[in-house]
């Protein structure tokens, strides 16, 4: 007592730091988008791109069409999907307190895929019918997860994860059945969609999705400190005034809603929700007030870049973006398990 505080401690996180890092990532995202607009089967020069964006220089109608109506919608769609999948992964990992959790592994994505494949089978359009069915499929999965995972003390993570794995297996079986019985060009459409197809993107979808994604982010950000406490011991979180049941339920529903929407227009894209949040944690620590914007924006950058590779690597043909994310994601995940897996298992 009476002793002066000799050492000073630094505040770990300030609002300015969050803003600074988010802004830097946002600028990087813009840069990635511009770069992605330049790259593709048809050559577009920087001068032409500048002309298209500013309306200044004369650019051929065809080039303009390619950049604005084919590349840009696809890029925006990749950005939105990456933003949501990565944010969803981060939040699922926190509420289930499991580093493996992500929308893909929990079966939410494959539920959506089941709906979409059904839609393709029935010859529905990509503008309305398929997204609607896909959204319904994702919601069905969430309902099943909740029914199976609900315990007296609220959601129980290992049950939910296991239920997700089972649901995933079940929907995959149905999807395989559809694929096996498909004969015409619908087969190709299905297969592409299953590995994350961003080629069907259209501006009209963004009007619905973008506001939902922004709203979801704001709601989740308001719970970021709650998530910090939940990952640091539920008993203490409860003691400090976190309504754990309610927080988990809100997070679960908000993320699922967004993922349902995203899957409906982007198909199955795995690993984004695992890679990006974990990279964020490795570099910046575990505070969700910083991790949320970083994961979301980082996810957007990652998926825009991955889709650019998917569009160009075997040009003039294209790969589904899910192939690229899985190709990078699976080895990365094995690396994570090898190097820091022991910390995740309770002993």
């Amino acid at each position: 007592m009476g002793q002066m505080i000799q050492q000073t401690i630094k505040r770990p996180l300030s609002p300015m730091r969050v803003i600074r890092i988010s802004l830097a990532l946002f600028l990087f995202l813009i840069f990635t988008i511009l770069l992605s607009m330049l790259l593709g089967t048809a050559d577009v020069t920087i001068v032409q791109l500048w002309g298209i964006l500013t309306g200044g220089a004369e650019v051929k109608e065809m080039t303009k069409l390619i950049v604005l109506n084919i590349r840009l919608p696809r890029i925006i769609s990749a950005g939105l999907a990456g933003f949501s999948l990565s944010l969803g992964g981060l939040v699922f990992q926190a509420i289930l307190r499991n580093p493996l959790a992500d929308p893909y592994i929990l079966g939410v994505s494959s539920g959506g895929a089941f709906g979409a494949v059904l839609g393709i089978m029935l010859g529905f359009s990509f503008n309305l019918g398929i997204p609607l069915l896909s959204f319904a499929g994702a919601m069905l999965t969430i309902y099943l997860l909740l029914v199976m995972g609900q315990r007296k003390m609220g959601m129980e993570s290992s049950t939910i994860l296991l239920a997700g794995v089972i649901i995933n297996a079940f929907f995959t079986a149905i999807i395989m059945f559809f694929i096996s019985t498909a004969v015409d060009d619908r087969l190709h459409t299905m297969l592409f969609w299953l590995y994350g197809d961003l080629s069907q993107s259209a501006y009209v979808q963004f009007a619905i999705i973008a506001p939902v994604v922004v709203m979801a982010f704001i709601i989740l950000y308001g719970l970021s400190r709650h998530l910090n406490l939940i990952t640091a011991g539920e008993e203490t979180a409860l003691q400090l005034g976190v309504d754990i049941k309610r927080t988990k339920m809100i997070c679960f529903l908000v993320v699922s809603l967004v993922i349902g929407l995203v899957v409906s227009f982007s198909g199955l894209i795995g690993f984004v929700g695992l890679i990006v949040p974990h990279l964020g944690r490795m570099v910046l620590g575990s505070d969700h007030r910083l991790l949320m914007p970083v994961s979301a924006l980082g996810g957007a950058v990652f998926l825009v870049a991955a889709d650019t590779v998917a569009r160009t690597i075997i040009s003039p043909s294209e790969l589904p973006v899910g192939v690229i994310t899985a190709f990078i994601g699976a080895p990365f995940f094995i690396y994570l398990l090898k190097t820091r897996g022991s910390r995740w298992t309770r002993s």
Partner: protein
Amino acid sequence: MDPVLSLKKVGFRYDGFWAIRDLDLDVKPGELLAVLGPNGSGKSTLLKVVDGILTPQEGEVLLKDRPVSGYTRSDVAKEVAMVAQETHFYFSFSALEVVLMGRFPRLGRFQFEGARDMEAASRALQATQCLDLAERSIHELSGGEKQRVLIARALAQEPTVILLDEPTSFLDLRFKKEIFDLISSLTHERGLSVVVVSHDIDLASQYCDRMVMLKDGRVYSTGVPEEVITASNIKAVYECPVIIDKNPAAGSPRVSLV
């Protein structure tokens, strides 16, 4: 002095089973109180009821003369802090980040910690001699260091009462002493009230001012250690014959198994 915390005829039932019943207990300001009792005697339930996490079906808990049921969760957390028995951190937080979590009840939804919060954290780290650990990851700390950081988090809440659920059960001898020295200084030098649940009767009787011994959810015996730690009490409560003599260093009752 008026008690900070007061339990009046409290009973809590899980489904059909009464975990605690008919329980009267006062916690005075600046007192170090030990709660003893065999497994399943209701010690942990008692802490949760005191903390307002569990609502008793019978009787009432008064916190500073007001029923705890009338407080919001974060208002309770401003008065009562709990150090849980075992806390597993799923992701890596620094010790300082962990301590700042104690400020949660005092911050708004989109608010960041300010100067006032840093001051509280700094004081808490100093009181627990954890200032050097501030930047270290909670995963890298030893058991004793981690427990000290968790106590620092409780202090950062700036409570009047701290509840500890078996704070030394995973620690070796040196850390046990360290933690009890710390707890003792919090009460006797800083005027905090501390309720500690412990299986370590010798250690508790050496450090605590008063003890409550529970049996089947009821208070079997209460008073200063010399009154509570008797061969007949322990025989009745723990169903185990013992010999009681005096700790040669502290003069407190010492239990030897027969």
